[in-house]
């Protein structure tokens, strides 16, 4: 059941990305180009998503288990660290370079073309680099 709900959630998430325009890098860059011909559409994507997600998190915050009985795993981290800010800076720079963030890149793979594949492959490699560096840092701490 949990696998089925995860699959459906992924499917709805991807359809939302495509319908909203997030899967078109030109549209994303049009939003990021404040000084050019600015396209504010993506504010509506974020607004629409938060409009629905906000009450869901309010409900989740009052529960310890999900509606299916699974443990509710809400993030506990709340510190603002140099690592958070540098990571977000690097992510934002990459987002501005190509117009892809992780979700839209993955939701573009099956649409065909080499470009989303190149980006997604490099993104996975970048995440792999993070894992290797993290493991090395963990060993050094021992």
């Amino acid at each position, binding site marked *: 059941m949990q696998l089925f709900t995860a699959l459906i*959630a992924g499917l709805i*998430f991807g*359809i939302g990305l495509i319908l909203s325009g997030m899967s078109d890098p030109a549209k994303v860059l049009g939003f990021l180009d404040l000084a050019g011909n600015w396209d504010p559409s993506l504010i509506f994507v974020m607004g629409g998503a938060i409009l629905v997600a906000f009450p869901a998190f309010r409900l989740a915050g009052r529960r310890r288990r999900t509606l*299916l009985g699974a443990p509710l795993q809400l993030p506990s981290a709340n510190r603002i660290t140099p690592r958070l800010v*540098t990571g977000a800076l690097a992510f934002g720079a990459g*987002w501005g370079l190509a117009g892809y963030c992780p979700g839209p890149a993955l939701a573009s793979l099956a649409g065909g073309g080499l470009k989303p594949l190149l980006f997604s492959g490099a993104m996975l490699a970048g*995440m792999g680099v993070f894992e290797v560096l993290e493991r090395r840092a963990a060993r050094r701490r021992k």
Partner: protein
Amino acid sequence: MHIHWSNFTPWTSLAGGMLIGLAVAMLILLNGRIAGISGIVGGLLRPDRGDIAWRLAFVAGLVGAPLLYGAVIALPAVTVAAGSGTLIAAGLLVGVGTRYGAGCTSGHGVCGLSRLSLRSAVATATFMAAGFAVVFVLRHLLA
């Protein structure tokens, strides 16, 4: 500031955003997990027993979405202006950055802001500022 009205799509963007919100709501209320794409995908590279299958199922849905979408209504045309080198550099930055920054547009942007997390608000403001800055440099200073 000049708004590009002919590209402005408030209704489809709002509807798409609400679908994203619905997916986020489903994943937290049914699976008890945060729908942060970089976290879900990144977790696949750190295999913990019992924590892989739901990630794979979610990613399968995400990757399969254009197939279903295209079967019902035609997929919208997209434009990827970036060349191969830029795409690879951008992908690496996004991959490393989202893992060090512990989230992307979905995890910090949608989920974090919906949870009223200050940490996510700082991350979102930071990656958006970096995106604005890079596009400004590329389109208005270097072009």
